[in-house]
């Protein structure tokens, strides 16, 4: 056990599983670096965000390699390899790039098992960076997990801290279904105590990060950190039950419903676009299954229905914040 960054937690998860299972391979664009470069040094970079440093040296280019900029081929290669016995990890550098390869994910990998009558499995993980906060603007800052969550056949993971990142990624690699693993780009430097050995965190089990009685706050990914801050800030005045579902598919609806039955109030915090979203899904679940428990109308804290702006000032307004979450909490208390 030692303090590790989110980045390092990711690397360790991949390393453990590649050590454990020779069928695990890993490929994507620039995850190794130096293929074809003038320094003639494969392994030169270890990923745009440094999440894969050292893996090439350990596992060699049969098991970890770079690819051309051809995301459909990458995702299809992962799906085809998974169908035929490997357990690939494929990197889609930014979630925003799903548009050039979505078919291989949602019509192929996600549907094989069903279309083939259960006579196939597709154990693969697609890692990708998500989220706003770096001023990377409309095509490099999106959340997009509602789109993956919408698709039957996919599992969707949103870690909110280094400990969860490691345990959930190990579970993702061991899982027999296609898993979308989404890493918030602003969190890579987050530090936390993380065990040195491998451990798996099961999917569909929410983490209650703050226990409380007055308001249920369901928050996703990076938003869990903000929700926790609000809980700490309001402690003594208003008591928040902060729920981090950790996976949006499967979603731990039970924990959410139980909490709302206890608190009677709900705030949902999500960085994704607001319409047909994970935030809407949570509110809908609660309305269907715990309507009578709701003392006041639930409140959604999400960005507006707009693309992500480039200007840092606008971006800061765009993403939910401690302030907007606190306001929502006060509103459901008052309402």
């Amino acid at each position, binding site marked *: 056990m030692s303090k590790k960054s989110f980045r390092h937690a990711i690397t360790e998860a991949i390393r453990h599983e590649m050590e454990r299972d020779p*069928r695990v*391979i890993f490929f994507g664009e620039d995850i190794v670096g130096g293929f074809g470069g003038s320094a003639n040094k494969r392994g030169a970079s270890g990923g745009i965000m440094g999440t894969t440093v050292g893996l090439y040296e350990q596992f060699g280019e*049969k*098991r970890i*390699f770079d*690819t*051309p900029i*051809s995301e*459909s*081929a*990458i*995702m*299809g*290669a*992962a*799906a*085809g*390899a*998974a*169908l*035929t*016995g*490997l357990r*690939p990890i494929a990197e889609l550098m930014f979630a925003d790039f799903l548009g050039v390869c979505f*078919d*291989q994910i949602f*019509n*192929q990998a996600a549907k*094989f*098992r*069903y*279309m*083939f*009558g*259960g*006579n*196939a*499995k597709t154990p693969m993980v697609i890692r990708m960076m998500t989220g706003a906060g770096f001023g990377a603007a409309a095509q490099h800052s999106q959340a997009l997990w509602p789109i993956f969550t919408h698709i*039957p*056949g996919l*599992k969707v993971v949103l870690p909110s801290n280094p400990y969860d990142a490691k345990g959930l990624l190990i579970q993702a690699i061991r*899982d*027999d*279904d296609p898993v979308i693993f989404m890493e918030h780009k602003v969190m890579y430097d987050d530090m936390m105590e993380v065990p040195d050995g491998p451990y798996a965190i099961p999917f*569909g089990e929410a983490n209650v990060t703050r226990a409380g009685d007055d308001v249920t706050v369901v928050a996703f990914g990076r938003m869990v950190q903000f929700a926790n801050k609000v809980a700490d800030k309001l402690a003594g005045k208003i008591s928040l039950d902060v729920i981090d579902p950790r996976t949006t598919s*499967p979603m731990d609806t039970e924990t959410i419903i139980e909490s709302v039955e206890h608190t009677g109030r709900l705030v949902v915090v999500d960085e994704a676009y607001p319409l047909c979203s994970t935030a809407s899904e949570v509110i809908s679940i609660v309305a269907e299954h715990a309507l009578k428990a709701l003392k006041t109308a639930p409140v959604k804290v999400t960005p507006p229905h707009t693309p992500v702006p480039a200007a840092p000032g606008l971006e800061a307004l765009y993403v939910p914040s401690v302030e907007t979450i606190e306001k929502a909490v006060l509103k459901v208390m008052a309402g």
Partner: protein
Amino acid sequence: MVELSQTVLLKAYRLMRTIREFESRVAVEFEAGTVPGFTHLYLGQEAIATGVCMHLTDADAISSTHRGHGHCIAKGCDVKKMMLELYCKRDGLCKGKGGSMHIADISKGMLGANAIVGAGAPLAVGAALTARTLGTPNVAVAFGGDGATNQGTVFESMNFAVVLRLPLIFAVENNGYGEHTGISYHLGAKDLVTRSAAFGMPAEEVDGTDFFAVYEAAGRAVARARAGGGPSTVVSVAARWRGHFEGDPQTYRDLAEIKELRKHKDCLKKFRQRVIADGSLKAEQLDAIDAEVAQLIDAAVNEAKAAPPPAPEDLTTDVYVSY
């Protein structure tokens, strides 16, 4: 040209005849309204799937297309279970959940018909990657039509396979049309071979109604792939005997063309003439196969019609291994 053994020749004929009979019967049954869904028949292209797949074992993988019945049969899928699947019955290859456009049998290395044009190529890249990773001598084949070659996924797969030197064969079937559109319009390049070769791999074109031509070219490509020589493309030129899908009135086509095709471009006729002429097989041997296959398909259709559909609870199973 290599001499082929009687066993090989008989197998080739049986496969082509089985595809012919299977598809001809599906055409009849579809018109009679007994087969659900959309269906695209492989009639006229039998020699291609056969000539390619006869080089493959169950450990080799193929990815297929919306026009996938021929690939299934050539790859060794159980014909009765295929028919059950076309009828969407519980005991079909995919429990009736896939149907004609998603028929698959992973145990036979048949990674599925595919209703998305061009989607099979990246999947075959993946299967070839499995072979490379595990160090097996296996290869993968990506079947695809002339129309599909204009899909970005196919181009990406070609470059990708060359870069990684994967044991992969692009088996392009130029049947002259993508739906209602002729290749003379949809292809900007001089031809498919030149364009594929420009991706950095060997490519050749053969008569897709001549089993022997396909068999030999595919043999070269498969051998190269198994030997670590990387990917190649084999373009087989044939023609679609039917509409794009069953029910297509083919107003865009000169229907006299099809009569000509059936007369002069019938792979079975050509095969029969040649093997009888050169004395490798006797007419009676072929006739016997014809009769057996006819019976097999008839039995398959009867069984499929009588078989039970999936149970209501099957609706929600097989989405995940666990959830």
